[in-house]
């Protein structure tokens, strides 16, 4: 939790990770009576059983609770004041964390997805032109997810799809391909965001503490990167773009080395791959900065950026209103060269997302 004194950054800022949340009854206008009744009666039901109480209520900054009494992220006026205006944000990408993709009842998940998507457009993007929405698809079912992408895709209010990192299967799996096919049709990137809970959260079973849940999330991202590459997704969908949000990035160079080295030995298993794994990764992946790894020495950070060689792919994010919020004015290391700082703060995101279509 950072006690931020709002301070204007001299460079333009695009925030790639803003969590808006749904006020009580907020989805009702967008749900049929049947599903409103279902929601009221049964609530959200997923593969629960892994509960790690977060450090703070709603994982939110203490100062992010709006005076209106709504939950953090639910009050647009307060968000404008505390984030969009305070830091002069050029564009902000909404990333609502409603677990529609995790619903056991697929039909309900589908109805919920449509409601969350309609709510984002009507209650947020149409009210504040700086904001853009993420299509939240019922992603564990390829057909339903593709249908929702086709429904929302033509609307330029949406700039990407949004999935949670801990999926039921690794995301290179064929059961997700119809969703990717639809996303490519509208040139929408697939964003994968911190979160999700559908089974043991490590490859070694259930850990005990929130620090392992939170600190272990990058391992889910690693698995998704490995899976996308090895399943040949980028050979099948050459224009597909993947954005990793809130997963950190210092781990990517070592993962690329390990993938390349292993692929050299085991490529007979994946004959469809035409290029080295690291080449697919550098072409197809974008990463948001927050929470940034903080090496103890400046030179390590600089080495890491060089090893990564993805200056055009890092994009700034605040993760508002969460406790580990990164301030646009203070989060990036002071020693970054101005051109790289400008790329990370805004240019890379402006290049990736079709903000100006709306």
């Amino acid at each position, binding site marked *: 939790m950072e006690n931020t004194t709002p301070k204007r950054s001299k460079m333009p800022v695009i925030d790639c990770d803003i969590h808006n949340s749904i006020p009580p009854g907020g989805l009702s206008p967008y749900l049929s009576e049947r599903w409103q009744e279902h929601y009221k009666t049964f609530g959200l039901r997923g593969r629960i059983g892994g509960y790690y109480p977060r450090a703070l209520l709603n994982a939110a900054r203490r100062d992010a609770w709006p005076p209106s009494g709504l939950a953090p992220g639910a009050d647009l006026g307060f968000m404008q004041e505390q984030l969009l205006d305070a830091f002069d944000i050029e564009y902000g990408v909404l990333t609502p964390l409603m677990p529609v993709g995790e619903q056991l009842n697929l039909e309900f998940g589908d109805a919920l997805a449509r409601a969350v998507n309609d709510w984002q457009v009507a209650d947020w993007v149409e009210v504040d032109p700086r904001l853009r929405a993420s299509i939240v698809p019922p992603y564990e079912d390829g057909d339903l997810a593709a249908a929702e992408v086709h429904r929302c895709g033509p609307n330029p209010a949406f700039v990407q799809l949004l999935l949670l990192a801990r999926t039921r299967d690794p995301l290179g799996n064929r059961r997700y391909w119809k969703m990717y096919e639809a996303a490519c049709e509208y040139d929408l990137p697939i964003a994968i965001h911190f979160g999700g809970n559908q089974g043991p959260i490590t490859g*070694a079973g259930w850990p005990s503490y929130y620090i392992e849940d939170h600190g272990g999330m*990058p391992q889910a991202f690693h698995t998704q990167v490995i899976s996308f590459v090895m399943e040949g997704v980028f050979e099948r969908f050459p224009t597909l773009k993947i954005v990793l949000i809130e997963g950190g990035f210092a781990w990517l160079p070592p993962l690329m080395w390990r993938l390349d080295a292993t692929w050299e030995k085991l490529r007979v298993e994946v004959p469809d791959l035409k290029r080295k794994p690291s080449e697919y990764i550098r072409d197809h992946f974008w990463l948001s900065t927050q929470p940034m790894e903080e090496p103890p020495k400046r030179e390590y950070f600089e080495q890491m950026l060089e090893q990564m060689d993805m200056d055009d792919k890092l994009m700034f994010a605040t993760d508002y209103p969460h406790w580990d919020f990164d301030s646009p004015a203070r989060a990036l290391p002071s020693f970054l060269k101005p051109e790289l700082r400008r790329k990370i703060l805004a240019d890379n995101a402006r290049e990736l997302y079709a903000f100006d279509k709306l």
Partner: protein
Amino acid sequence: METENGKPSFVQAGMSIIDCDLHNRLPSHQMLYPYLSDYWCDYCEESGFPGPDADDYPDGVPTSSRPEIIHPSEDRLVSDLARLRKHALDFWEVEYGILTCGYRVQSVHNEDFAAALASAVNDWQIEHYLDTEPRLRGSLIVPSQNPELAAREIERLGGHPGFVQVMLPARSQAPYGNRRYHPIYAAAVRHGLAIGIHYGGAPGLPPTSVGWTSTYLEEYVGMSQVFQAQVLSLVSEGVFEVFPDLRVALIETGVTWMPSLMWRFDKEWRGLRHLTPWVKQPPSAYIRQHMRMTLQPIDAPPTAAELLQIVGQLDSEDMLMFSSDYPHYHFDAPEEAFPTQLPQSLARKILSENAKEFYRF
């Protein structure tokens, strides 16, 4: 720069070498019968039990075996130990070699049976390796899915001078920081044994945090994520506060991922340490003090400069220990088994001094 006899320069240089990851392999399950009770022998025979199989090294996969060992030609008829001597102990001129037997009793859900198999494979290791070849040291196989039975096996054989560590497969039913494993650590510390967490295992749970992978390649690469979960767990649960003498080797899953994990983990701790107040130091301090990593497969970056950067980012000269990972295939020329561009004092530490201190030879 190889010499006429094919040996790499760092062997020629005459520095002492300790190889921390050598695989001995049970030629057939029946080899264990002399060490199993009649009951379990009958049980095996009647059920046709072929031995536990975690399928973590499929036969024929290049990483499972070097080309010259898949096609052993003149080696075909000699014993596992003879091959190991020829391709590893004699070739690398090792002072000590540590066996990391991959017999995965953890895949056997009948815990009494798993314990009997573990005891048998340990007795087999003593007779066929440790009492036969003085350069070798062994790893105790234990039924870690039942820590009480595992501790009993450590008590039974922990005093044998041939054993230097207790072997735990990386994949487990619960992460190794969980306090259910304390009996194993207490027994290991009592007998001065290290814990070796090794690539592999098949506890019946998915190998990743997002389910089962389609290819072996994904599972193989992804094993380093399982190791990362184990590191997070051991530190977060305060195992090193409970057992200050506990030493943990991370075996056969690369080394380059460790710096970025330490950065992230230290940052997490700064924000969340009030939730695990028993973790008194930054996580990287426990890792540097208590954990070591074996070298192969090193997953080296493309340039020597980058490799030196990564070794530097560990902020420790003590953490790496040489391994050839015989008979697995990670490097082509023997010269590539070790990053010879390292400064000589560090090379000496990695080749033998770190292991000598860690395993207390």
